[in-house]
């Protein structure tokens, strides 16, 4: 992990403010397994950390030392935990701490301990940092719109501290930037089902189905909106089969004659839930059948056969799906 200062590091043993402390070396025992080739900087920093930790010294210099240790080893939860102890003992300015955290998070955005520390801070600071936290995660998403930690943190902030007002719009914005951003689709589902301002899934289903359909028609090969559409119907096959818009979007995609794997998968699911296919749908399926001379089988089996050809990497799965088709009436 990159340190922030450009100037050369002064070894701790040469710093006058540390003259009274005896560093405690790591005792790996006689036959350590998978030893690591530590740099001198790392060893020295951790030796001094051990000293203050054992002495339970909760001082400003110890606080600074934890920062150095964190910069070398940001996953070390013992150091983080001790830092929290010191912050409490010194009654430190937690807003300053948040600023420090902002800095190191930018360079280390995929570290669990950093985000855990952030949650600890936000919990202490309370509701009034809700906006700041939402802004900060947005900043992270500018560089990496799928950062898993940031999304978890954002969900936690919304549920614990509030700030739901702009969330659905934010999801729309991200999806507009990249319609394939599955994290944004997941967040959308989260908002639609959990936001206290929106009324829940039942209320939101209609407009959201329309939103999903528009996204599907834009890029039918995109897995995300198809999953989202299913999710809106709680993956209940009967509910999906009874929503005419679902069969309709499948038909539209098939008519486009390209990128229809997900559409066929959906048709298969509908048929497995006793959906009565229209003549149009049957014709549309026939029209994309690469081999019009398929043996006379039910529509569902035909769909599986087509899928084997157009999605060959999952051929074994599509073949097996044939066996799960309920007997036709």
């Amino acid at each position: 992990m990159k340190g922030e200062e450009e100037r050369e590091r002064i070894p701790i043993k040469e710093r006058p403010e540390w003259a009274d402390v005896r560093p405690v070396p790591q005792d790996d025992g006689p036959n350590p397994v998978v030893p690591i080739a530590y740099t001198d900087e790392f060893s020295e920093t951790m030796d001094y950390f051990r000293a203050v930790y054992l002495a339970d010294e909760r001082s400003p210099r110890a606080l600074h030392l934890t920062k150095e240790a964190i910069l070398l080893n940001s996953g070390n939860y013992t150091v983080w935990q001790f830092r929290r102890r010191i912050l409490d003992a010194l009654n430190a300015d937690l807003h300053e701490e948040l600023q420090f955290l902002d800095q190191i998070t930018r360079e280390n955005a995929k570290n669990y301990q950093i985000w855990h520390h952030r949650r600890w801070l936000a919990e202490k600071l309370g509701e009034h940092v809700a906006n700041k936290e939402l802004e900060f995660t947005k900043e992270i998403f500018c560089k990496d719109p799928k950062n898993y930690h940031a999304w978890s943190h954002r969900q936690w902030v919304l549920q614990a501290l509030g700030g739901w007002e702009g969330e659905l719009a934010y999801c729309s914005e991200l999806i507009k930037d990249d319609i394939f951003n599955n994290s944004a689709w997941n967040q959308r589902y989260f908002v639609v089902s959990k936001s206290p301002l929106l009324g829940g899934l039942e209320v939101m289903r209609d407009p959201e189905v329309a939103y999903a359909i528009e996204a599907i028609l834009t890029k039918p090969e995109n897995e995300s909106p198809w999953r989202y559409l299913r999710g809106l119907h709680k993956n209940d096959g009967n509910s999906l089969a009874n929503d005419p818009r679902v069969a309709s979007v499948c038909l539209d995609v098939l008519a486009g004659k390209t990128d229809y794997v997900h559409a066929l998968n959906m048709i298969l699911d509908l048929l497995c839930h006793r959906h009565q296919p229209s003549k149009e749908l049957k014709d549309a399926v026939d029209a994309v059948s690469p081999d019009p001379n398929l043996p006379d089988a039910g529509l569902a089996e035909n769909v599986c056969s087509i899928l084997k050809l157009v999605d060959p990497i999952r051929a074994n799965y599509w073949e097996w799906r044939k066996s799960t088709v309920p007997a036709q009436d």
Partner: protein
Amino acid sequence: MEDEELWDFDSESLSFEKDRHVLYLEMMYQLLPAPYQGQEINRLTLAYFVISGLDIFGALDRIDKEAVINWVLSLQAHPKNDRTFENGQFYGFHGSRSSQFQSNNNGAARLNGSHLASTYCALAILKTVGYDLSQIDSEVLLKSMKTLQQPNGCFMPIHTGGETDLRFVFCAAAICSMLKNWTGMDCEKAKEFIRNCQSYDGGFGLIPGAESHGGATYCAVASLKLMGFLGEDLLSEKASSNVINVPLLLDWSLQKQAFEDGGFRGRANKPTDTCYAFWVGGTLRILQADKFINEEALRGFLLTCQSKYGGFSKFPRLFPDIYHSYYGFCAFSMLREPGLNPLCVELGISAIAAIGL
């Protein structure tokens, strides 16, 4: 830790370079290069990758088993006495000396930094080298582990607090399974938490509401398998409504194999990565649905991530790292590569180690 510079690669190897991988593991066993110092706190996990990796190659003769056992056991946290144990701390294993301090005169119990993930790795290593786990003082370990379980069924990794998510539910389940003692956790509550982590798209997120993710999905399914909540014939229609939505999970998982390069991705619309061949491939194996994986395509992808130095990298043409190497080896074991030992996928160790002969 990851050194992401590109290296000049001559010609792609079309075969699995077993000898090079064993050499790579031997080198890591002897000494991990400096960039791994950022992982010092988790050294036991690194050791697990190396040792379990060598086991997969049938090359455990390259290590000093006694030394390994002694080192791992030295990382176990012990309460000072019977009363100390009731202080709400977890007495498991430390990941390294970095969280383990010699207790001084204060007998400061706060010095116990043992961690659930390290405990899993410790037991996995011990089982792998053939150590009889009944010799471990497991009563304290399990009793104190229960205090890490949250009201919603999830697990915290360490008593001083930490992120709680599915990874630690898995660790707890694997620990109980290896110690053959389920008093360390409330399985019903854990099952509920796992169910709540299944996303609308069929995969599992690390916590309820989170995006479905290959690693989280493995943790969920492996945990359920270990706890005995998954029936025998999961794909059969007759399988009564399972604890989780299996058909949806199946479809999600299979969709993660990319037609573009044959590799597995961890989330929809994200790049493929070596390790998901284990996380998602392993999930499918547990569901007895690995027959639906296109093995040839997967193998082809993995070979593009094989390093000429031995080991595997996350993506093609990067330097290898021990994490992606280990999961690459696991993936080839699941692909039945000759010369590799089979796995007990849900425990994350070789099948023989799991049986404990």
